[in-house]
């Protein structure tokens, strides 16, 4: 069990260093390089759509056109209105609950013994299998969707936070004690900022998992929102519309993760700004 957790945070550590090194290499013109990368991807998509790879595979330009059609006829905004409510609520609850539980488990042995095994099991379990169970208990409304988001997002956030708090730089803790820091000051001024990179790595994974949760819930439980939009256009063989919907939720998820990173650097680790 313990090995499980270690691998988890090691993996996130690795991705952290990898992304920051990558960013350093591209420091000269990061925006241009990113745009080139997006343009290349779009170009390959366009060509693949023209070959065509499959009759169900639209070109990039068709997909973009479908995207604007969906916005214009109001079906996509309506779908997002329905999807975003459980998603935002679930992600926010998971963030605060997860970081809170993780900190408590990292600081107290009792919390660790009581709660950490539950989250290790939850993380190892194929959680999508719980979703029918959630429907059974909570019906098909907003509660069920929110819970689907949380059971996917919460474990990784709790485990990363717990591991980050447990691995806080010992010498900074001693330093804080020697300068007469109280327990509360130690937590807020040393433990949280020192643990924040790994906590945020967990938040990024958790938020991404929350997107998985809400789409799964809409595909499996309640035919509403984005999940319903995907199913509906698939059933009508409107493949461009279906792809546009899928691409839009991927883009939203990516933007959310970028925004999280921005908060991290802005609020917790100013020394990484521009790095």
């Amino acid at each position, binding site marked *: 069990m313990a090995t499980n957790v270690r691998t988890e945070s090691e993996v996130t550590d690795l991705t952290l260093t990898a992304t920051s090194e990558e960013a350093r290499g591209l420091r000269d013109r990061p925006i241009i390089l990113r745009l080139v990368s997006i343009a290349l991807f779009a170009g390959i998509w366009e060509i693949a759509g023209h070959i065509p790879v499959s009759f169900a595979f639209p070109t990039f330009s068709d997909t973009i056109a479908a995207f604007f059609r969906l916005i214009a006829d109001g079906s996509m905004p309506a779908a997002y209105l329905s999807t975003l409510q459980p998603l935002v609520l679930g992600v926010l609850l998971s963030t605060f609950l997860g970081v809170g539980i993780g900190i408590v488990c990292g600081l107290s042995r009792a919390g660790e013994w009581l709660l950490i095994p539950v989250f290790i099991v939850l993380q190892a379990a194929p959680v999508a299998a719980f979703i029918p169970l959630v429907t059974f208990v909570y019906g098909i409304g907003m509660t069920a969707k929110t819970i689907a988001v949380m059971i996917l997002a919460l474990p990784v956030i709790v485990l990363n936070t717990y591991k980050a708090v447990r691995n806080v730089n010992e010498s900074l803790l001693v330093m804080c*004690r020697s*300068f007469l820091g109280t327990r509360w000051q130690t937590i807020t001024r040393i433990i949280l900022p020192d643990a924040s990179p790994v906590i945020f790595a967990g938040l990024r994974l958790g938020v991404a998992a929350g997107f998985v949760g809400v789409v799964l819930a809409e595909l499996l439980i309640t035919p509403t929102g984005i999940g319903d939009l995907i199913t509906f256009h698939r059933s009508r063989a409107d493949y461009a519309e279906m792809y546009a919907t899928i691409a839009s939720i991927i883009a939203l998820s990516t933007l959310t993760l970028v925004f999280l990173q921005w908060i991290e650097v802005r609020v917790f680790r100013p020394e990484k700004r521009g790095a």
Partner: protein
Amino acid sequence: MAVTALREKQSTVHTSLEAIVEVKGICKSYGNVEALRDIDLDFPRGKLTSLLGPSGCGKTTLLKIIAGLIGASAGSVTVDGKHVSGPGPERAFVFQDFALMPWATVLRNVAFGLELRGTGKTEREETARRYIAQVGLSGFEDKYPHELSGGMRQRVGLARALSVDAEVLLLDEPFSAVDEQNRRKFQEDLIRLRSAQNKTFIFVTHSIEEAVYISDRIVLLSPRPGRVSQVIEPDIDRSGDPDSIHRDQRYLDTVEEIWQGLKQYVE
């Protein structure tokens, strides 16, 4: 405030060799391993005393016991007559690995001790700027630790310890992670800083040259278990050119004498 300061100054003038830190019968064991056995030491006010010895002699352990960061198995430490049971405002620690917060600027790191005490932002930053200037880091206030060299980082650590205005500064091998050239410069600066501050320094080092160069008193510890083997007071004039100390005959003789004494403990 001013009256107390004056009174303190007078008392130090009258009894300049009065002990500020007294260590009585300190023993420390980790399980079956005896790290320190029956240490009795006095640290005179306003002097720089080095704890010198080979690795395993418990010098850092003794310093951390004085700092109140670890407890002793037996014996007691008093500072200004008050029994030590934990860290206190009259002692400040300089760490071997600097222990700077990587997410905070030099200014915030130096002011951190005051921040923890609840000193207002303007006041603590003003104090911090003063000590940053004293350790020669003016212009680096807004840099982050990773932008500084090892020597500069330890200057931040020293400024942080100075800025809480503790009477006793405890330095745990402060130069061991600093390169040789920077260490020489830093040692010279420390001598200069000391003459400006009327503070007591307790300095742990494993370098004989360093100890003789900067110390008023050197406590030699022998290893396994750590005991006091000798106390030396090198009578070296440090008022002149710092480089001349390295050529001073008494400096060279003291270094040699200590080496002859410690040789037997080095395998």
